[in-house]
Structures are given as structure tokens and as C-alpha cells.
């Protein structure tokens, strides 16, 4: 181990997250591989090591014999300070080698607030931030992950982006880079060739021109790059590689458990939900596959908990069969099975009863909107009746804590809708009084609100964001309407949401803002410990860019949107139609009742969605 590192580790919190050496890490001979890849996660070790995408891609990239893929994370503040003081560059955990020595830096960006951390990791590695400042072929710096469906704010920094699911695409890219390195290609030649790989977006091959009012006039593809980059998907998840021997961290991380990914995509089509649109079409795994992979992973990791992962667990049709199969293995071994993202219905409750015989922790419901009208407008198919039914069963079964999540600032929201939140909490409380077996233990009802952020590629992508002051007004309105003692109200601050709104629909000019925030010390901005709103305001000011233009402005239907070159498979007409239905407070059927022809099925080459 580096002597300097050895000296600082005793001074930092939880040093094991900076040392590697975990069980199942992949070690190769650095002299025998042709490409060294650093899989960079722009957040802490604890968050990154809980990420399923990282586990999968670490495995698939390392399945190439000519590649050694290692991991790098962003150090927490204390370690960051010590590394800077000691002059230690960012290093990969497996080998301890500085990232400077790597051929590829592959960033996984799941949320916009990680952008400044990406810049910081590049800097800590001693690598120039902007693609244009890295004229040589190597290192290639690229990014993927759900934030990259509008990659524009990061366009100046990255050589390329991979859009969609990376299992196959990353390896195609690395195979091409191997050839380029062996044959001594220059960087432009490699980038031009990379742009021909499905799902690869090379921002430098797209010219963006602007109108006088700051909106985009045109986006023009150059040098044979596709006009639209269609996201990649894995068509058959049962056949897709799945790591049943992931790394087992030697220190506590956020998710110390086995993840079982039921399906990708969602049949629901909630209009505010980016994930529900960009991961389409829905593709489920067979229960046999999941049971086999789940048991294998449990055996290979020694974990004592399994979680079923998906956007909406109740929509997994063979859920009963899957749980039976897993419980046969788990129950005799005291392995816990958790099912987040359940819907509020009776079936779910019976399942919960079966699973959580011992610990009755809180129930959580994402209700999102305070009135039935608003929930119809956003296509969130939850009725108050369902919710109260579920609560009744839960309270009768001994649960005594309920969390209800809402967004404020959804399109068409009125004060009446907001007051509806308080009324619903009252009815849940009333339901507890009527159904709870043992009232002595009391009940805890928690309402949480966050500020709605319009995101690219969903029906609300053109919508305005209400902004900080209006959000606070709505918070106060709700606050004064909540009177019951057993009801707690937590609201998330809107400052991060405003910045996130600007970044998620931002264009290339935001590169300057990101760099400025980072220069002023911004990193780990996804953490309230480190996020400083004024730093962002100052950066917008210094770059002479208008925050409101990016964050709160409603986009015109005739506008060229910064992410127009990215095609996630869902047609613009579908998004527009859904937006119109919102204004009429009309529900749309889910994909199982009736396909609304969003376009995503085309990616399955003749197969139907959800088969």
C-alpha cells in the first residue's frame, strides 16, 4: 500500500471504504490486459456499492479477457482533504493504481446532482476536465446511466455517452477501443467509429446553434453520426449476464443485501415519471431464473437479506410463485425477503403479512397527488379507497406507522389539491382508530413532500417548475392544514430541486456553470452536507446564464429541446398526447390493459411488450 495512504487512513472515518480487498473483487495481471478501465461512481463507496448497475457492468466488462475493470468512488470530505494535502491522486480500489494510468474512465451517472463530483474525480485523477483538452486517444472518458438521457450539461467534459443499458454496448465500445489502441488511431477517428455503435452518443459530432432568445435553433449531426441516437436495451433479460458473485463489501453499505431485479421498465406510465418512460419497454425475468440467481447469489455472498427490485413490484405477474420459491430457501435459513415498491392493494398486504412475520416496520406509499382529480391528471393509479383498505388491513395486523409521499407543484395542482393531502392524513388516522387492535402503542402518520422536477423524455418534459417561493407557499398552506398530533409533516427543501430542474433539462452551455461550481469547491452536491445553493446562484451569475430560463420556464412545443438527439424509444406524439390527457384529468390505461402505442415495442423486433 502507498505509504502516504497508510499514514492518512488512521485519521479518516471508515477507512475500509478506501482500501479495496473485498471478497469477490476481480484481480488481474496489469501487464497481461490491454485496456485498464476505471468504473467511476461519482458518489460515496456506500452508495456506489449498493448500485445494481455497477455490479452488473463490473462483471460484464471484466468478462472481456483483454480488460481489467476496477472501481473508483468519491472520497468523503475528510478523506478528500487528506488526499489533497498528501498529494495522493484518485486511485482504483483493486490495484491501488492512480487513475492517471488508466485507458478508460467510465462514469455511471444516475442523477444530475452528481455532475460536479464527476468533474472533481477527473481533477483528482489529474485528468483535464474537458474533452477538447484531452487530444490524445487515451484516456477515453465516457458516461452512462439514467441522467445521460439528457447528457448536454456534461457534453463538453465527456468524449462520449452510452445511452441505455450497457451490458452489450460497453463491451462493443471497449472492443473497438482495443483495436484503436493497437492500430494507433487518433481520437477523432475513434470517436467517429464509436458513433456508429448503437446507443453511443458522441457530443462533439453534433453542432448546436442558438436563437437570440437563448433557445436552440438547430442540432446538426456531423461526420456520419446518427441524427438520433437510439438507446440500447437488453432484449432477453433471462439470457442476459447477471452477477451471482458480486463484491461483498467489508464495511457497511446502504444496501447490504442481495438484489433481485424482477423486470426493467414499467407498465404504468405515470406522467411525471422519467424512469417509467426511459426504461420502456417492460421486460420481465422468469421466476425460475430469479429464484436460481437469487439462491446462487445468497450462497456466494453470505448475505442474510434479499430485496426484490423494480419500479413497481406488484406488477410482476408471477410474484406469488417467485416469493414461494424464494421463501422455500430463505425461511429455514432465517434469510429475510423484502418487497419495496408494492402497490396499495389487498394482495400486497397478504404478501407483507407472510413476509414480515416478525418485524412490523412502517408502510410507505407514494401517493404523489392530494386529490383524485390530480392523481388522474398525473396518471397515478391510486385511489383513496385502495389506500384506506390497505391501511385498514395493516392497522388490524399490528402495523402502526404509515408514510405518505407527495409532490408539490405538479402540473394543474391547485390549493384544493394540497389541502386534500391533509384530509387524506386525517382519514388514515380515522382508519387507524377504527381498525387498530392495540391503540396503546399509538400511531405515526408521516407526510413528506418534495418539489416536482420536470424531466426529459416524459409527458411533463415541457412543463414549468414552480420555483422555491411558490413551493414554500404551498408547504405553508399544507402545514397550517395539518392539525392532528399524530401526523408529522416533513418537506424537502426546494433549493436542490431547482438546481436539479435546471440541470436535467439543461443544454451544453451549462458546462461553464458546472465548472464554476466545482472551482468554488462544489462536489458531492447530492448531499445536503455539501450542497450550497448560493454557490450555484453565483455560478449562474458569473456565467451570465439565467437560472429561471433553465429551471422554471415552460418549454414551447416548437422548441428544439437540448436532448432531441436522444431517442429513448417513446415517441414525441405519445408524450404530447399524454400531456393533453393530463389537462383533461384523464387516466390512460396501463400497458397490460391496452397498449397506447408509445413506440417502445419497436425495440423488441416483432415481439410484444411484457411477454
Amino acid at each position, binding site marked *: *500500500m502507498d505509504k502516504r495512504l*497508510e*499514514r492518512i*487512513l*488512521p485519521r479518516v472515518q*471508515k*477507512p*475500509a471504504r*478506501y*482500501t*479495496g*480487498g*473485498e*471478497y469477490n*473483487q476481480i484481480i488481474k495481471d496489469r501487464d497481461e490486459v490491454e485496456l485498464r478501465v476505471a468504473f467511476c461512481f461519482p458518489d460515496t463507496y456506500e452508495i456506489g456499492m449498493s448500485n445494481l448497475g455497477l455490479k452488473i457492468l463490473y462483471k460484464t466488462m471484466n468478462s472481456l479477457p483483454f480488460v481489467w475493470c476496477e472501481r473508483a468512488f468519491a472520497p468523503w470530505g475528510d478523506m478528500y482533504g487528506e488526499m489533497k494535502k498528501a498529494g495522493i491522486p484518485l486511485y482504483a480500489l483493486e490495484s491501488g493504481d492512480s487513475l492517471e494510468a488508466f485507458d478508460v474512465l467510465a462514469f455511471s451517472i444516475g442523477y444530475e446532482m452528481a455532475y460536479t463530483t464527476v468533474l472533481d474525480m477527473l481533477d483528482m485523477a489529474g485528468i483535464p476536465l474537458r474533452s477538447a483538452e484531452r487530444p490524445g486517444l487515451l484516456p477515453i472518458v465516457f458516461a452512462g446511466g439514467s441522467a445521460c438521457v439528457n447528457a448536454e450539461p456534461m457534453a463538453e467534459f465527456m468524449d462520449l455517452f452510452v445511452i441505455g443499458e450497457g451490458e452489450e454496448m460497453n463491451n462493443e465500445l471497449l472492443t473497438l477501443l482495443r483495436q484503436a489502441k493497437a492500430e494507433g488511431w487518433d481520437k477523432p477517428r475513434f470517436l467517429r467509429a464509436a458513433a456508429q455503435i448503437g446507443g453511443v452518443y458522441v457530443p462533439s459530432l453534433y453542432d448546436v446553434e442558438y436563437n437570440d432568445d437563448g433557445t436552440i435553433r438547430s442540432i446538426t449531426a456531423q461526420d456520419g453520426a446518427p441524427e438520433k441516437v437510439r438507446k440500447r436495451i437488453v432484449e432477453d433479460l433471462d439470457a442476459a449476464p447477471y452477477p451471482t458473485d458480486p463484491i*461483498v463489501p*467489508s*464495511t*457497511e453499505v446502504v444496501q*447490504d443485501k442481495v438484489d433481485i431485479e424482477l423486470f426493467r421498465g414499467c407498465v404504468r406510465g405515470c406522467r411525471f415519471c422519467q424512469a417509467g418512460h426511459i426504461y420502456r419497454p417492460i421486460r420481465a425475468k422468469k421466476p425460475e431464473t430469479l429464484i436460481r440467481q437469487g439462491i446462487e447469489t445468497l*450462497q*456466494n*455472498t*453470505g*448475505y*442474510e437479506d434479499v430485496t426484490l427490485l423494480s419500479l413497481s413490484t406488484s406488477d410482476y405477474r408471477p410474484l406469488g410463485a417467485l416469493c414461494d420459491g424464494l421463501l422455500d430457501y430463505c425461511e429455514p*435459513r*432465517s434469510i429475510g425477503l423484502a418487497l419495496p415498491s408494492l402497490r396499495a392493494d389487498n394482495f400486497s398486504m397478504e404478501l407483507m403479512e407472510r413476509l414480515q412475520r*416478525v418485524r412490523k416496520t412502517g408502510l410507505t406509499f407514494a401517493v404523489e397527488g392530494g386529490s383524485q382529480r390530480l392523481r388522474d391528471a398525473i396518471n397515478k393509479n391510486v385511489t383513496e379507497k385502495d389506500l384506506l383498505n390497505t391501511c385498514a388491513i395493516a392497522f388490524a395486523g399490528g402495523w402502526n406507522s404509515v408514510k405518505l409521499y407527495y409532490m408539490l407543484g405538479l402540473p394543474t395542482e391547485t390549493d384544493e389539491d394540497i389541502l386534500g393531502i391533509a384530509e387524506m392524513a386525517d382519514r388514515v388516522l380515522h382508519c387507524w382508530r377504527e381498525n387498530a387492535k392495540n391503540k396503546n402503542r399509538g400511531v405515526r402518520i408521516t407526510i413528506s413532500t418534495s418539489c416536482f422536477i420536470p424531466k426529459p423524455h416524459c409527458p411533463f418534459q415541457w412543463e414549468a417548475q414552480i420555483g422555491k417561493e411558490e413551493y414554500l407557499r404551498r408547504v405553508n398552506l399544507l402545514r397550517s392544514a395539518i392539525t392532528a398530533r399524530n401526523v408529522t409533516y416533513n418537506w424537502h427543501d426546494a433549493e436542490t430541486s431547482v438546481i436539479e430542474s435546471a440541470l436535467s433539462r439543461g443544454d451544453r452551455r451549462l458546462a461553464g456553470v458546472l465548472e464554476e461550481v466545482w472551482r468554488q469547491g462544489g462536489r458531492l452536491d447530492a448531499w445536503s452536507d455539501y450542497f450550497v445553493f448560493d454557490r450555484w446562484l453565483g455560478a449562474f451569475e458569473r456565467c451570465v446564464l439565467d437560472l429561471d430560463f433553465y429551471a422554471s420556464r415552460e418549454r414551447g412545443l416548437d422548441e428544439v429541446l437540448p436532448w432531441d438527439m436522444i431517442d429513448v424509444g417513446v415517441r414525441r406524439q405519445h408524450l404530447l398526447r399524454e400531456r393533453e390527457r393530463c389537462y383533461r384529468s384523464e387516466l390512460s390505461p396501463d400497458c397490460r390493459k391496452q397498449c397506447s402505442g408509445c413506440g417502445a415495442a419497436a425495440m423488441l423486433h416483432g415481439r410484444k411488450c411484457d411477454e
Partner: protein
Amino acid sequence: MSKLRMRFSKTGRAIWISHLDLMATMQRAFSRAGSRLKYSEGFNPRPQISIALPLSVGCASVCEIMDFQLVEEVDITSLKDRLNATMPEGIEVLEIYEPTRKNAELKWLAVEGIFEYDEREVDIIQKQLAAFFTRDAIVVEKKTKRGFGETDIRPSIREIAFSAAEKSVSVTALISAQNPTLNPELLCAALRALAPELAPDFAKFTRIETFDGEGKLFR
């Protein structure tokens, strides 16, 4: 199944795993090896494992002792191999056996340390260090449950010797393992407080061997 004892080493990158994390690591390693640890009864069952002398983060050891119980009878020789195949880097099971002695009989620990001096004459320092530790009493501040207290660590050091090496001084010592426990880091703390000119720029320790009150090997 009856109580078993494991001796293991924790070196290299594994020295940074905290005591609490080590417990979880052990539980998972057993589970991966196909042997389940026995759990305590009650609302919040925990694996029945106990580590004789918790090791501080950053300290290495080649003589750790852990007692445990398994749910099923196993062949202990193959258990050792199976465990070693599933341990994270730096943790190695040295032997597994049925214990005959109580952990309370463990009294002395042999430790080795390296005191690093970046810019000082280690030949001179080495002699001064030896002289320092011949003092009758070495009183240092020590964190106690009730805040700070003073404690004389001299009786907890049975033997100590120094030899000069490359930009560093090697230390070998026999120190009290329990009642009272002497964290070897206190040797440096004593220097910082009483003879700062001798305090090393950096120090690291390795536990080497365990002994009973009579100075015989403890197993």
C-alpha cells in the same frame, strides 16, 4: 455443536476493517462456506461469535482468537479450508479447535511495531527510546468512561526492546492484553506527552502472539 475456537490473522488491507464490520464479515464468510453460525435467541438474533481481544482499526495481527458455535456438526479441518476460500483479502484462518481454556486466562500479548522517523537519526533515537521506557512510571492521559483519567502504563509493559532500521525503529514488546488492556498506540501517546522529541512520525503495530499469566502460550 460445541464451542469452537478459531485463530486467524488480519493483515494487509484487512487491517482497516473495523471490529463491528469484522463480525458481519465473519458471519458472511461462514455462510458462504456452507456452515451456519448459531444465533442468539430473542427479538434481534445475532450470531454467537466472540472475539477475545477486539483489535483497533489499522493494527495488524497474526494471533486473533474468536470463539463461535455452529448449527450443525462439521469436520473442522475441512471447515478451515472452506473458510479460507471465502475470506476477504488479508484474513486467514490459522487453526480451528475445541478450546480447553477460558479467554480470561489470556494475559500478555507480544507485539511488534515500526516507528517511522522521516528526518531523525534513528541510531540515537533507538537508544533514547530504550532509556525512556526504563522509567519507573509512565503516566499518560487515557480516555475512560467518565472522561479523562491518568494511568501509569509502565506495569502493563513487561518487556520492550528497540532496534534501528531504515528510517525507522523496530519495537518488540510484551504488553498486558487485558485487565488492564494496553493499546500499543499508547506507547506513542506516552512519547508525545512526555518526550515529544522521540515521538515517531508514524507508527504501526502487529500483534504476534498470545500468552497466559505465567508467560506460556495461550491457545
